[in-house]
């Protein structure tokens, strides 16, 4: 299939499948309808996967302005065209693989959900939107995919009807990312207005003045921060855990959060020209890495640990971009997609089995759930950067790039590279600590499924399943995605040794110098401390050692409150003031004009009923007035 056909089809197939799916009658427990919806969703994802494979095997090499015109806005021609180079192909591959597994996994995970059909359709739309961002050769189309993802995340996070917090989390996810999108829209508007074209190829080769370029790129970073959950717009991501667990896998691994990193990657020829933008990105990345890692240490909710770890890991990617190594960022994006999808789907298996998200109610699951356990071991090992799992190689790449940039010579200033390097290094230890804690609390020790007062009350997030007497590995439709995802999560790092992959990503040759020792030491220290704490007080949460910092970290540095105080409340106050002004002043003027006119009319009416003497005076006065006017007119 020619690339001019396969390229556009890649986003279109899931998008169209999604739209068809939305029109289908909702599942409502009807098995035939469910089967149809599931078949459609899985088929859409599978076709997209095949197309992605096709594009990876033979990618395009220059962004030609092909496709068809959607509209001419003055001299701006918006086209639907795709540009799938090797890098875009690999990202598309990751997206479609995860999407396919999520679709398959969801069949079992949502087996008794009454709104399964729209759910599947929305997952398809979500995938298609992400693929549009990945493949589009037009900035407006990229924005289209970008925002459709926001809407899909809103719909999917709010999917669970029985969760009181789900609607709020959904609104928060949409609004926070939308706030970032204000910047994104303005940023690409500046790029487009200056280049007089919406086409990616034209924009990347246009010669911008440094001021314009930096302004535009900084604005785009606001959008990136929103979508990729970077400080200060990361606050929606932990709350987004209210969504069904497969959706978390989709958002965290393949779509949404990867989009921001990918857009910076796509626009990197421009970012390379702006030290200020990259320095900002570096600071943002460093703060995000640390906030994410530290907040993850104190969570009790299994999924929230993983959510905060995503925040932190995306920070590694933006950090790599900031220090001038887009290849390392993309590599980490791919490995992260594999191991984070694995972790979330495995977390879903745990939640499915024990009926709670809270680690304080788990424990001892290793013997009952070996597949899930080993999935977690591989996923968490990759997350922490344990050699030879995938995360080790990609994280090593990021650290090497940052260390290299501290010597100067890159676009970003050396201090920015230092900031990224230190944050990334420190976070290796913290990540190892919380990964170990998660593994120990969930799978080792004794079961805490029964609290002091008998079984836990059902008040959990994803627990639409009755807790089985003995936790067990999930059914095949959920088990196989885990097993298959464990392969890339473990081995994808070795792809750095494959020449084809390496040149496609423009990765440097892997070399394991003495520089590896430092992160390995931190990793051992982090994991060792967690293990030691757990051994020293069996059954106790290692997070207790955090002491009074624990609630602060558990609340994510209380940034939600900051956001509430400095954004939400001022806006509501402003809304109140403006509404009052609109009613009490703007409309009051209108109404007063009306009543004024009525009163004047009433007065005149009264004047016409005056008795004779007064009427004569009035007539004479009027005659005098007219005379005066006529006289003035004659003078003029």
């Amino acid at each position, binding site marked *: 299939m020619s690339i001019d056909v396969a390229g556009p089809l890649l986003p279109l197939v899931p998008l169209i499948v999604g739209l068809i799916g939305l029109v289908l009658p909702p599942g409502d427990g009807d098995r035939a309808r469910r089967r149809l919806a599931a078949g459609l969703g899985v088929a859409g994802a599978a076709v997209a996967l095949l197309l992605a494979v096709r594009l990876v095997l033979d990618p395009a090499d220059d962004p030609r302005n092909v496709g068809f015109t959607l509209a001419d*806005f003055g*001299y701006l021609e918006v086209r639907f065209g795709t540009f799938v180079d090797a890098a875009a192909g690999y990202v598309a591959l990751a997206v479609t693989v995860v999407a396919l597994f999520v679709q398959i996994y969801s069949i079992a995970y949502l087996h008794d959900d009454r709104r399964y059909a729209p759910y599947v359709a929305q997952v398809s739309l979500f995938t298609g939107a992400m693929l549009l961002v990945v493949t589009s050769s037009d900035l407006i189309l990229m924005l289209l995919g970008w*925002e459709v993802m926001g809407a899909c995340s809103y*719909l999917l996070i709010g999917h669970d009807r029985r969760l009181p917090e789900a609607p709020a989390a959904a609104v928060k996810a*949409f609004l926070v990312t*939308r706030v970032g999108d204000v910047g994104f*829209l*303005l940023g690409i508007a500046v790029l487009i207005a200056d280049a007089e074209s919406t086409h990616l190829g034209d924009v990347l080769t246009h010669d911008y003045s440094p001021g314009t370029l930096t302004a535009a790129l900084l604005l785009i970073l606001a959008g990136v921060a929103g979508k990729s959950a970077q400080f200060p717009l990361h606050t929606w991501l932990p709350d987004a855990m209210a969504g069904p667990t497969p959706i978390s896998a989709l958002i965290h691994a393949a779509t949404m959060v990867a989009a921001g990193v990918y857009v910076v990657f796509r626009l990197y020829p421009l970012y390379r020209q702006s030290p200020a933008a990259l320095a900002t990105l570096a600071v943002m990345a460093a703060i995000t890495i640390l906030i994410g890692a530290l907040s993850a240490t104190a969570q009790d909710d299994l999924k929230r640990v993983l959510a905060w770890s995503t925040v932190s890991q995306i920070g590694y990617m933006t950090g790599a971009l900031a220090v001038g190594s887009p290849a390392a960022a993309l590599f980490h994006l791919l490995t992260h997609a594999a191991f984070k999808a694995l972790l979330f789907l495995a977390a879903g298996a745990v939640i499915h089995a024990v009926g709670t998200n809270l680690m304080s109610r788990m424990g001892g699951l290793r013997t009952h759930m070996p597949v899930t356990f080993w999935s977690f071991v591989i996923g968490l090992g990759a997350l922490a950067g344990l050699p030879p799992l995938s995360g080790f190689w990609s994280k090593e790449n990021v650290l090497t790039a940052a260390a290299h940039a501290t010597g100067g010579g890159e676009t970003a200033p050396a201090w920015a590279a230092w900031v990224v390097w230190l944050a990334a290094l420190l976070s290796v230890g913290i990540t190892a600590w919380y990964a170990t804690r998660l593994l120990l609390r969930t799978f080792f020790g004794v079961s805490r499924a029964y609290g002091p007062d008998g079984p836990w009350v059902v008040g959990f997030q994803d627990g639409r399943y009755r807790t089985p007497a003995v936790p067990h590995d999930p059914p095949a439709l959920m088990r196989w995605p885990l097993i298959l995802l464990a392969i890339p999560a473990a081995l994808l790092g070795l792809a750095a040794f494959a020449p084809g992959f390496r040149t496609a990503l423009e990765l440097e040759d892997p070399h394991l110098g003495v520089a590896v020792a430092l992160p390995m030491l931190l990793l051992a220290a982090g994991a060792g401390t967690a293990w030691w704490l757990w051994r020293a007080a069996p059954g106790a949460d290692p997070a207790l050692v955090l002491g009074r910092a624990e609630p602060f970290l558990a609340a994510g540095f209380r940034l939600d409150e900051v956001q509430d105080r400095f954004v939400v409340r001022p*806006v509501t106050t*402003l809304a109140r003031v403006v509404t009052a002004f609109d009613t009490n002043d703007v409309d009051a003027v209108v109404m007063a004009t009306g009543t004024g006119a009525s009163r004047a009319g009433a007065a005149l009416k009264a004047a016409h009923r005056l008795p004779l003497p007064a009427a004569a005076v009035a007539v004479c006065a009027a005659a005098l007035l007219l005379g005066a006017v006529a006289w003035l007119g004659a003078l003029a």
Partner: protein
Amino acid sequence: MNTLLIALLAVPALGAVVVALLPDRRARLVSTGFAAVTFVLSALPILARTDEYSWFAYGPGDGPPMLPWAEVDLPWVPALGLEFHLGVDGISYPLIVLTGLLTLLCCAYNRKGRALAALLLVLEIGVLGTFLALDLILFFLFFEVVLLPMYAVIAGWGGPNRRAAARKFVLYTLAGSVLLLLGVLLVVTSAGTGDLVTLTGAAELSKDTQHVAFVLLALAFAVKAPLWPLHTWLPDAHTEAPTVGSVILAGVLLKMGTYGMIRVGVGAAPEGAGWASPVLGGLAVVAIVAGALICLRQTELKRLIAYSSVGHMGFVLLGIATMSITGVQAALVGNVAHGLITGLLFFLAGTIKDRTGTGSLDLIGGLRETAPRLAGLLGFAAIASLGLPGLAGFWGEAFAVIAAVQRGGPFWLTLAAVAAVGGALTAAYFLRLLRRVTHGPATPAVAAASPAVTRIEWLAWTPLILLTLAVGVVPALVLNDTVEPLANLLGVKL
């Protein structure tokens, strides 16, 4: 083609008379029939689409000021220089089709008898005439035709406060019409002709005349559009109007203001428009933000949607204010998108209000529990209205911002930034609306309401849904033939 344009006005006129004479039970079918014929007629001018604008015939920008696809030019009152001059071109065509479509859907949906059906058809005459008129005085006449039927629709079939709302509507817009008359007369007397084809580009008018004329015309259209702070008739009128009244009011009547701003305001007084554009742009952005903020505080379903119109029309006027092809195109597509989406929103809001017996957001909740289809449609309409890319509302808003950025300079960049923030606020209030209405447990009012969507309702809504999607994916549907006419209108060389 000449007869076609006359028929476009004659068919609804005939329809109105026939429907008014028929018994109530026949009214719906017959009015729908007449509206359907008009709709088909309204779509036909595309067949007469000329390629005379093609790049080979004229360099764009130096052809004649306007080349309608089809026109009728009959002398009417020669003593006053008044001609019965109608025409269609790429700018007016989408709005004419939109008018035909929305009237048809409203006639099909209307269950309130023959008088309302007849009034809908009378309204259609006025609106179509306004979009068709190529003579200023004729334009003014059609502009006025709309007022009284709309007054009657609100006052006759509206909610509890309908009389006050209808009075406010008619007096406020009448005041605007006085200004329009003054502006039209000023232009006609100083140019010596009321013919819009001749006037477009306005070489004849002096600078000062253009300034005064544009101020008068812009004020008149700003009341109709409406532009903040001249909007306060709108929420009352919408809240009280019956469903079909709201749909027509939001869907096509407001467009007369923005269309007039482009065709008459910018067309006849381009220098005046250029001179006033910063004020227009500033007010438009205030409208966007103020509209959104006020929406955040609304507790009544229809009132919220009415105020959202203020914000959306702000984006349209911002596009016009940029005085660039991109901007005015954004305004045109924004116009059509608003007609489709807000029309749909008002249909849905009206249905929800009818079913539950209340429009209070405090009493409606959990719609997706009992009526998932209705909730899904409301979600679709709300998400379209907040400007989600891929749906119709996006293009007008995004390209108004892009056009403002293109205009450049600190002032217009600030306007672009504030407008974009307004876009985020729009999302905030629509999500608040959805969260209240669709999520959570079903309230008693919702639980008691009938959940099914009837066939007639599907019939009335499906075209709007499909077009929202179609225009969202391919905005060229609306914009295909607008670049060249706008280049001439704005005097811009491509």
